[in-house]
Each structure stands twice: as structure tokens, then as C-alpha cells.
């Protein structure tokens, strides 16, 4: 993936760039908003990672607004030190697709970048999701594994659906909290872990091949191969 990183802090930029490159992506870097806007408008990128506050007269929000006004639909992930909900809303309203507050773990950033890059396209609504012998029918809202029906509660269904839609990708706890529960706060306890382990009980218990995997220091992933 070709990623444009617009970040004025040299240290953070170096850290993000190196991490993304190690994950197999090509990274261009701009240190201020004006250069960033120029690069984003003149070249083709698969993803923009933008700092919310940038020097050079063009901040992250302005940059995205300008791009969107030109019809550029490249996915945008905001990085920001501003954690207030209003700021987050402002960033998303301007055309950002996701918002990550600094400081962050690199695993979180990578997971979000990859989730954004492989967002399900709107025009092809899937009605069935399938990982190995685990099948999910989105219309009848049923889950079967190896042909056997698994009794699942509505919220567990949404949790499993989110994991399956991002099969093979790391999904962090915060992402699950935001996307499955729509909570934007710290629940203090490892509630997400408890929810995932309950889901695991239903989906993986009694089968020799587990599908839901814990990724150390990052989150969870559902995948067919161990």
C-alpha cells in the first residue's frame, strides 16, 4: 500500500514510517500541511495518515476538506493530541474516516490503517461471511460452524461480524469498543477481553482448530490457518 504520512514531529514521523514500512507499505512523508496537500493532490495514494494540527497554514482538517472538495476519496486516518469528543467529531465531519488519539501503540495504528484500507465497499453488500467452516448469515442472523448451529446473542453477533469482516486483520480492543459498542471511553476493566473469551467459548470450544486468535500487545484476529 502507498501511504502518505503528514506529521510535523520528526520523531513520531520516523517511528510511524518505519513501522509501516516494516509492515510492507510504501510511505511518503510531508512535514507540513501545505506540502502534504500538494503531495496528496498530485499523486496517487491508498491512504493518508494526517496529524490533526499541522504547521504551514493548512491543518489536517483543512487538508481533508480541500481534498474532499476536489472529489478525492482516499481514506484518511487522523492522528491527534486533541482528545475532546468535539475535536474527534470535527475531524470525522471534515471527511476523515478514523481518528486516533496520541499517544498510541503502533499496533493500534497499523490495525486501523489496515482496517481502513480494506473497508467493505458499499456497493457490494455481502449476505454471507465465511471463515473456514464458520459461516454467518447476515439476513437470517444465524451462525453455524461445521453445519452446526451456534446460539449467539445480538451483541455477540455484531462482535463476530466485525471480526469476520476484518478476517486476517488485527482488530484492537479500542476498535471493537468503538465499532461494536459505539463507546468512546475507557471502560477501566478488561471488558472487551471477557466478551471475546465468551464468544470464543461458543465459536471455538469443541472444535480442534481455533479461529479467534489473540495477537499479543495488539488485539484479536479471526483467521482460518493457525
Amino acid at each position, binding site marked *: 500500500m502507498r501511504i502518505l504520512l503528514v506529521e510535523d514531529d520528526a520523531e513520531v514521523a520516523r517511528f510511524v514510517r518505519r513501522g509501516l514500512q516494516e509492515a510492507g507499505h510504501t510511505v511518503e512523508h510531508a512535514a507540513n500541511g501545505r506540502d502534504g496537500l500538494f503531495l496528496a493532490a498530485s499523486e496517487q495514494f491508498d491512504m493518508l495518515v494526517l496529524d490533526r494540527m499541522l504547521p504551514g497554514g493548512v491543518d489536517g482538517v483543512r487538508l481533508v476538506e480541500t481534498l474532499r472538495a476536489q472529489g478525492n476519496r482516499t481514506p484518511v486516518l487522523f492522528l491527534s493530541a486533541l482528545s475532546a469528543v468535539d475535536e474527534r467529531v470535527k475531524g470525522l465531519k471534515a471527511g476523515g474516516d478514523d481518528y486516533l*488519539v496520541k*499517544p498510541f*501503540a503502533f499496533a493500534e495504528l497499523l490495525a486501523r490503517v489496515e482496517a481502513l484500507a480494506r473497508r467493505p465497499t458499499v456497493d457490494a453488500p455481502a449476505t454471507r461471511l465465511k471463515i473456514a467452516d464458520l459461516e454467518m448469515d447476515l439476513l437470517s442472523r444465524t451462525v453455524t460452524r461445521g453445519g452446526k448451529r451456534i446460539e449467539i446473542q445480538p451483541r455477540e453477533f455484531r462482535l463476530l461480524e466485525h471480526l469476520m469482516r476484518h478476517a486476517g486483520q488485527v482488530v484492537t480492543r479500542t476498535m471493537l469498543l468503538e465499532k461494536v459498542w459505539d463507546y468512546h*471511553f475507557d471502560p477501566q*476493566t478488561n471488558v472487551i477481553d471477557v*466478551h471475546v473469551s465468551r464468544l470464543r467459548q461458543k465459536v471455538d470450544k469443541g472444535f480442534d482448530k481455533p479461529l479467534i486468535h489473540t495477537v499479543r500487545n495488539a488485539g484479536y484476529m479471526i483467521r482460518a490457518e493457525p
Partner: protein
Amino acid sequence: MTPPPIPQEDLPNPWDPLLRFLRSAGFRFALLFAVVFSSAAAGFAFVLWFATAGSLDRQTDAALRTDALGLMERWREGGPGAVSDAIAERLAADVENHAIYLLLDPRGVRVAGNLDRWPAAAGQGPDGPWSFAFVAREGISVEARLYTMNLGEYRLIAGRDIEEKQRLRDTLAEGIAWSSAAASIFALVGAAVLRRALANRLRPATRTAEAIAAGDLSRRVPSSGLEDEFDRLGESMNAMLDRIDRLMEGVRGVSDSIAHDLRTPIARARAKLEEALADTAEPGALRAAIEQAIADLDHITRVFGALLRIAEAEAGARRAAFASFDLAPVLADVAEFYGVVAESRGQALVTELPDRIDLVGDRDLLAQAVGNLIDNALKFTPPGGRVLLSARSLPREGIEIAVADSGPGLPIEDRARAGERFFRADASRGTPGSGLGLSLVRAVAHLHGGDLVLGDAEPGRLPPGLRATLRLGIA
């Protein structure tokens, strides 16, 4: 670099104090008072004048008209002779000595009456037959009201000496002039008193505001005890100052908290890193130390996030983002979210929720606040215990969300401090948590015009358990 321009100070205008006085609200109120008072006085004088002097004039005119009609009747009955007889008769019976008559024959010779010649003004004025004229009585000029008419070739004047009435009128005019002067003085004095009273009533508020501007934040507007508009203004000012005080205290609290609870983990992380640096001999230990340091930093970040979140709620800035929503499903979701935790510990999380609770507020903050209460309750409830989340909407008191547990409860002396940042009751020292949970709940309650109340879940039971009630005002 060019020096910044020196602000040009205008030369003091000698008229400034006067202009300032004219612009003052006190002066305007006073002026308004004076105008209203003077208008009332003028209206009163006008009515008085119209009812007395005007009525006298109308009486005179009515009497003259009757008189003239009577004489015309006589003319029709008996001609000039009858009229002159009538005039002589009327003059003879004129005890008030104010009647004036003059009858001239076609040649202009006086036939009857008590006027020696025809007055120049009579019958030529703009009022048709009516006119005013001066006549001489014993050498003194007096004013008379005249009614002129023609009887065939003869000309007749019926008139009244109105000197007496004129004198009454003058007296009245004089009285009105004097009372106008008195009214003006009253208006001015009243205006001055009003202005002064206004200035006096406003002075405490002004003084307080000046003292606060000068840095003495402890000052408050004293109440006069009159419970009037000015007291209400003072109360609003005091409420505002209290709020500012609380915010300042909050800021102070944050800096204290940062000093206390953020420095400690930072110091710990730093110590570990330094130690690891000294023991570079063992790569495994180094790695473990770095991982621990990252975990410590993450903890610091979480505490930091919680502090910012509390500050956000306390500042009240989120009120702009308030929306109307149904709280019941939000509470059910939170209960379901934490329910799995309760289950995994062998506790029961029970809900008692109405079908619908309409509310204007911040969904995310309320969910977090209730989540914190549940999380707290679960932490302090032993396995096998029970936590109850209930909510009800009261028509008058607003919305009440209660979380009751079957844990040890909270001693009364700790309850008041439970919402303070980083306060942790001695009993809870062993459990994980930042100590910011209840602070956030309290801040969210305040943001929604309510409060957090702590009490026994079941008084008398041992242990009593804790019941945390989040009261939200009617938004």
C-alpha cells in the same frame, strides 16, 4: 525590529465628566422620571384649566346667546321700542354690574344701552358675531365679551364685562405657573434622589467586581436583604463567582493530581529504565524493563485521558453537544456490556429499568459514568454477590440512576471525599483503578444539572452495601 506603536492617549476632554454623567444609566432613569413626573403635572394642569377657566368662558357665551335671542324675540314682537325697554330693564336689574348693551339706530345714534360708542372690533373678528373688546369703566380699561347682531337696520351689541372672570383666570394661571415650578423642582430633586439611590444600590456589585478584577476572588456581593432585582443580580454574580471558584479549584486539583498521581508512575518507569540501563548485561531483563515501562506509560496515558475527560465534563463545554435520546436502551447496553464481567466473577448484575426515559444529554458521557459506577460496584462486591442497576424518571426531581451493590459499603466519613480526584478509600487500596471513576461520575452529574449521592444500599444489613445514585436534573 520596529518598536510597537505607543498607544496614543487622547488629551483629556474637559467635557468628559459631563458626557459620562449624561451617558450614565442613572441619569437616563432620572431623566425618565422627571419627564414622566412633569408630563403628569402638565396633564393635571391642562385638565384643571379646561375645567375651570374654559367652563367660565363657555358659561359667559351661553348666557350672552340666551340674552341676544331674548332681545331678538322682543324685536319681532315690538320693534326698537320694545328692545330698548328690555335693555333698560335688564340693565336696571343687573346687580352684578357686568351687563353691556348697545342699540344703534340706522344712523348710528344710540337708542339704548350703556356703551357710548360702537367698539371697533365688534362684529369684525374671525369668530363671526363673537368678539373681545376693551371698554373703559370709570377710566379703567376692562375686557369684555361681545355678541353682535343686526336687527333690521338697527345694530345691537349684547356683552359682558369679563374682568372678574379674567381675574380668576389670572389667579388660576398664576397658581398653575407656581405649581409647575414646584413640580419641576420636585422632578429634579426626585430624579437626583433616584439617580443616587440607583448608584447606591449598584455600588456593592461594582465594588465586588472591582475587587475581583484586582485579584481578590474571595469577595462576594453582599445582600441587602430586600430581595429585589439588585439582590438577584448580586446572587447571580455570586453564583457565577462560585462556579469560577470551583473551576479554578478544579484546575488546582488537576495540577495537584498531576503532581501526585502522574509523577509517581513516571518516576517508577524512569527508575526501571535507568536500572535496566545499568544492568545491560542481561538482554532478557532489558526487554522486560522496556515492556514494563511501556505499560507504565500506557497507564499514565489512561490517567491523563481520564483527567482530560473530567475537565471536559466539568468545563460544561459538552453541553453544546447535548442531544435528546432515550436513556433506557443506553442503560441496558451498559448493563449488558459489564454483565459478562459480573458473570465471569460469579456475580449477578440485575437491572430494573423502565421502558423509556427521555433525556437531553450526552450519551457517551452518561454511558461512561454509569459504566464506572457498575465497574466500581463489581470490584467491591464479593463473588456470588449482586449488583442492581435501576433507573426511574420522576416528574419533579428528574432522572435517578442507582447502582446498588452487596459489598462492604462506604463509611460515612469517606463518602464526601469519594468524588475527589485520586481519592481511594483505605479498603480499596488493593484493587486496580485510577481513583478517578467517581470524579468523572460527579462531573457528568454536574454537567447534567444533577449530583452524585452515596448511601447504604440496604441500611441495617451487614455489610450494608453501597448505593450510588446519579441524579440528573430535568434538562
